């Protein structure tokens, strides 16, 4: 019965999100555009052989775009949760037999579905417009991205707990999440970061997402990335436990 409520709420949240003109554009179209446009711009100057050898175009950029998909999903979750709290929507849902965790699970499911859909769109666009053919194991990569998103979503709930009002949700979330991409090893290998940033990168969950996604994209086995998955699970457990304590429903 509650499964019925969960599925219906997830479905409605997805529909509502797609009706939001800017929300859907920002979370779906922008990462795909970054992927395709940047790939073409970077690829234009390179000969086909050099292109294939350019690890940023063939691995870095797809992973960057995927991380963007994930981070924008989390940012939109933070915003939605804080708007819902401010508008009393969370409270109204709590006044039904729906369990509080079911309400939040619906949002997680909606975001994971959107992430998967955006990734699929990116791959489709990539097949047509991207300078380097996509040969990555797509199923494994999708699973890796969903694990990573699921883990960062728990940070999203933590951020949603601390933002004072809905107006601050997007900027505070962006302020916390985007710098994480900088030290995640995506642009500069973690090893060549200055010691302080290196240390920081080890506690930033996105570092493990990037390592996992890059590895899976390049064709590594899951076994080689057990550590990354474990780190992401630890992040999820810690953040979920913390948000269970500090999450505000109103």
């Amino acid at each position: 019965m509650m499964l019925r409520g969960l599925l219906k709420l997830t479905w409605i949240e997805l529909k509502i999100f797609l009706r939001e003109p800017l929300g859907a554009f920002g979370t779906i179209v922008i990462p795909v555009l970054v992927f395709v446009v940047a790939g073409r711009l970077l690829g234009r100057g390179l000969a086909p052989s050099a292109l294939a050898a350019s690890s940023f175009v063939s691995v870095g950029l797809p992973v960057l775009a995927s991380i963007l998909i994930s981070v924008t999903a989390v940012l939109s979750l933070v915003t939605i949760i804080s708007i819902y709290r401010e508008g009393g929507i969370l409270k109204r849902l709590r006044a039904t037999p729906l369990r509080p965790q079911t309400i939040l699970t619906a949002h997680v499911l909606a975001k994971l579905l959107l992430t998967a859909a955006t990734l699929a769109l990116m791959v489709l666009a990539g097949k047509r417009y991207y300078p380097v053919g996509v040969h990555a194991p797509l199923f494994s990569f999708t699973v890796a991205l969903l694990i990573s998103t699921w883990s960062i979503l728990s940070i999203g709930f933590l951020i949603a707990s601390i933002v004072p009002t809905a107006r601050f949700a997007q900027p505070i979330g962006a302020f916390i999440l985007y710098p994480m991409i900088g030290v995640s090893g995506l642009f500069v290998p973690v090893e060549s970061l200055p010691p302080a940033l290196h240390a920081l990168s080890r506690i930033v969950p996105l570092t493990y997402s990037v390592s996992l996604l890059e590895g899976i994209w390049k064709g590594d086995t899951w076994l080689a990335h057990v550590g990354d998955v474990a780190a992401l699970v630890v992040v999820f457990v810690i953040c979920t436990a913390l948000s269970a304590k500090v999450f505000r429903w109103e």
Partner: protein
Amino acid sequence: MNPIIQVSGIRKTYGRTVAVDEISFEVNDGEIFGLIGPNGAGKTTTMECIEGLRTPDRGTISVLGLDPFSAVYKLQERIGVQLQQAQLQKRIKVWEAVDLWASLYRKNAADGERLLEQLGLIDKRNAWFMTLSGGQKQRLFIALALINNPEVVFLDELTTGLDPQSRRAIWDLVRSIRERGKTVFLTTHLMEEAERLCDRVAIIEHGRIIDIDRPENLVKRHCPERAVVLGTDDRTAEELFRAIPRVETVIRSDSQFTIRGQGDDLVTEVIHCLSENRIRVTDFRTILPNLEDVFIKLTGHSIRD
């Protein structure tokens, strides 16, 4: 009478602010019970404790024989709730909201489409929540509160911010909820609303209940004063009016008299005096105290202050 809600000695503090202090009352099966008082008096806190949304620091509550704290989900299956100043998702459609809410309850939900029809929302079933007017939003919240065929319906400041016409329409709806055999528990700071709608009211201020009874009994108990305003050119009338038993003051301005006194018999006595002395009157009306006057009497200030 069969109490559906029993509240006994509840207290709730937020930091050093005491929101609700030693409140006790009972709500009977099938009545419309109103908690009335100014903003910040503790109405919403009390209601949300009964709904299981808040836990009181002290005291016990029983709703339909259930403890709202330990049996909150069981309870929420059987009650319907409208929260003060609640919103829904901006872009959720009316029918989607009703459909979603229907799926949240274990027992068979009411027919959503019929509810929308009864609440005059059927033309709006495909409209987004954000495009609805204040009255339409409140009617949708009533629909959501009724979707699980609840035994008790909670309505918190239902008509605040609505125009008089929408307000009257909502009052009719609330009466129709009672006619379906449900118990209604509402809060309001509108005395007219309480007077027209409620079978019994509890007056609450600073987190304490001052008195509970039927509105007319409260008026009788706390405001026995009656006044008759009449117009006459009869020069001898003033002395005659003063001689009426239980008349306290007679004020004259030109040909208009205001006669004040105690008790229900005052009006009869005045009419008796008029007919006995064949006094010709050009105007006659009575001023009866209402809940607003009771409130002022009990608290020393108007509910709007």
